[in-house]
């Protein structure tokens, strides 16, 4: 077990190096360091000297991947790629292109993202499971057909509509929540209630269908028949046996996405003006701040791999038959 985890952790390195090379190449095919400098310096009275000065201060005056002028190992190490990548692996994210400390910004912006993501996840899963169980309980009934059709309908509506309609109806017409904004601490409640509600409702269609198929698989198993034969009522079987046994795939499904909750939601954060990591990423893309984009990609990839690892581990924890050796 420990061995497995260590092996998997070691595997993280080549993947992260690959990710880093890919983002690096993609970005610098597009932008030269000169472009970045001019983007940051604005457009009034910018001289070439100012550009050179900026590059030198930010360490963008080196060759990209290979330094012809240097000697020996320096040929590979005295480059923008090497200098900028090394820090990432020890989680020293450094300064953004406009001079702010990225780690400080991330640690600050992570909380609003979590404030939206965690309630959305919890309430979403609860709602999905409840409705999925209800659908199974009413199997073969018009309530089930109606419910399933509603699921497909809600899946066919773009998430943007939920956000636009929700903001317009609840925020503007009914005047029940602030249109956008955020406040830390307990004051956050009134700001997150709408995004969370929309997140839960928007994900209901596909979520309910997914959980339903999970429960159906479980309900088809022999022990369910046995339990029914014993005279347990449908409702009891459903909640006592089916739900309990389906918890394993449910939990492992949630564990995968747990780390990625940090990354925030791109769309709903920017719609509701929530200062989280999702809007941080979007802003960095539009202002072409390479340092932030690279850090966020690195962080995202890292968390994704951790998520995969956690899933594997949680399998062994909940199901003794699975072993990782």
């Amino acid at each position, binding site marked *: 077990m420990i061995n497995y985890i260590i092996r998997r952790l070691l595997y993280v390195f*080549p*993947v992260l190096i*690959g*990710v880093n090379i*890919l*983002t690096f190449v*993609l*970005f610098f*095919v*597009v*932008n030269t360091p000169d472009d970045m400098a001019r983007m940051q310096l604005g457009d009034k009275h910018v001289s070439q000297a100012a550009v050179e000065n900026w590059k030198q201060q930010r360490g963008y005056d080196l060759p990209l991947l290979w330094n012809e002028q240097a000697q020996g190992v320096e040929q590979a190490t005295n480059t923008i790629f090497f200098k900028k990548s090394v820090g990432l692996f020890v989680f020293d994210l450094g300064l953004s292109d406009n001079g702010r400390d990225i780690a400080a910004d991330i640690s600050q912006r992570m909380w609003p993202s979590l404030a939206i993501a965690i309630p959305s996840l919890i309430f979403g899963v609860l709602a999905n499971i409840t409705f999925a169980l209800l659908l199974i309980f009413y199997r073969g009934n018009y309530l089930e057909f109606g419910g399933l059709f509603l699921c*497909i*309908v809600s*899946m*066919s*509506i*773009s*998430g*943007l*509509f939920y956000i*636009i309609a929700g903001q*317009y109806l609840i925020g503007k017409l009914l005047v029940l929540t602030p249109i956008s904004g955020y406040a830390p601490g307990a004051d956050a409640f009134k700001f997150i209630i709408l995004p969370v509600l929309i997140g839960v409702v928007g994900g209901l269609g596909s979520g309910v269908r997914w959980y339903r*198929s999970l429960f*159906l*698989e479980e309900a*088809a198993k022999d022990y369910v028949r046995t339990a029914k034969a014993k005279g347990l009522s449908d409702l009891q079987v459903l909640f006592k046996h089916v739900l309990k046994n389906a918890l394993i795939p449910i939990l492992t499904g949630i564990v995968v996405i747990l780390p990625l909750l940090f*990354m925030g939601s*791109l*769309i709903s954060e*920017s719609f509701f003006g929530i200062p989280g990591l999702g809007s941080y*990423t*979007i802003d960095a*893309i*539009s202002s*072409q701040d390479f340092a932030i*984009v690279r850090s*966020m*990609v690195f962080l*995202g*990839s890292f968390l*994704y*791999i951790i998520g995969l690892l956690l899933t594997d581990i949680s399998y062994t924890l909940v199901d003794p038959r699975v072993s990782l050796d």
Partner: protein
Amino acid sequence: MMTVLWTDIAVFFLVFFGLVVAWRSSKKEHLRRPWEKVFNSKTGVASLTILLIFILIGTLDSARIQHYKTLDTQELSTQAKTLSLLDIILTPIRTRVEKTYSEPFAHMAYAKEMGVDEAGQQKWRYPRLSFAGAHLSEPNSEKSGDILLKVLLGFSFGMLAWLALVLILSLLAGKFILSKGSSGIRVCLLTLLGVFFIVGCIAMLGPYYHILGTDKVGEDVLYQAIKSIRTGLVIGSLTTIVMLPIAIGLGLMAGFFRGWVDDVIQYVYTTLSSIPAVLLIAAAILMAQVYMANNPELFTTVEDRADMRLFLLCMILGITSWTGLCRLLRAETLKIREMDYVVAAQALGVKKAQLLKRHVLPNVMHLVMITVVLDFSGLVLAEAVLSYINIGVDPSTYSWGNMINTSRLEMAREPIVWWSLTAAFIFMFTLVLAANLFADVVRDAFDPHSNS
């Protein structure tokens, strides 16, 4: 003279490819049976009919010809305008451009404007539209009757055309297909009846009113929504062309050869799928823009440029989305290669390529089929989201995403401009709902483990 854009070629290739696949699978027993299941399901046939109508519109929109404008001097202009067949069919809707917003079925503009009234007085008032309802002299009293009449006319024309179609088909089949035909044909024809009604109404009303209103520069919203069909379809289907060869090739190889091949392929897809897709797409779209800016001679018109961007967007979506299917195919191949007949064939010295083609590929095709249909609707929805953060299609391309994006500003107006959003919603919803229902039926038919 024809002008062909990149995505046009792709659309025609896709249609051709689809026909070939349909023809080939009709000859193979193991593929025909599930399809028959699909055709016997009412939902399946109805949604397929709707999808085919959308595809027909998309294909019509991909066939382009050069169109020369007539100058004031009655000469033909030297500058050609490229129009698709769909544009030409929709000419009455396309060319009736108002000044700015107008509500559906309105005869007056949405905003007040300085103008001269009958008495010759300068007044701040709602001006009449230059096209919509212009044939009415007393619009306030005449309009509703006129609209009702046109709707009825549209219905009857639709009915007539439909009856004609039924008659022709019956003659061809040698029996009255409404009562004697298979249930699939009947459902298909009934769906078509609905479509014919709608088309009839549009044909009657379109030249006189803006059925779904006009946008900020006065362009008909219905026209925009119809033009967006092609974009949606291209994104939903072209992406799969890119994705399928990579996913199938790598997935089979990883599962079949194992060893270092498997390691490398697993490494590649773990790496790719661990990068947040939005960031990858953003970087690629930026790159495409730079490429186009550096090679302006390759893209002389806005259409070329927009088309290239659409094409590249499909490519990059394909590159980011193959990993899921690849993982699935790898697992399935791992299972298949241990099966007796494969082991036997291998022992008999059948070449590996043959083995893959004959025994492995056919056995994973159902997975491919299900993934393609399921992904389609997801991609159509993704387009809207990407356009919202400006890394989707070009702003000059007609697309539902762009319509939604602009409608956010319109929602803030007072009175609100709701029709662009509604139009995009209706069209997108219809397409995605049809695709989802169809995907459900296909999955039930193809998936051996399906539970219904």
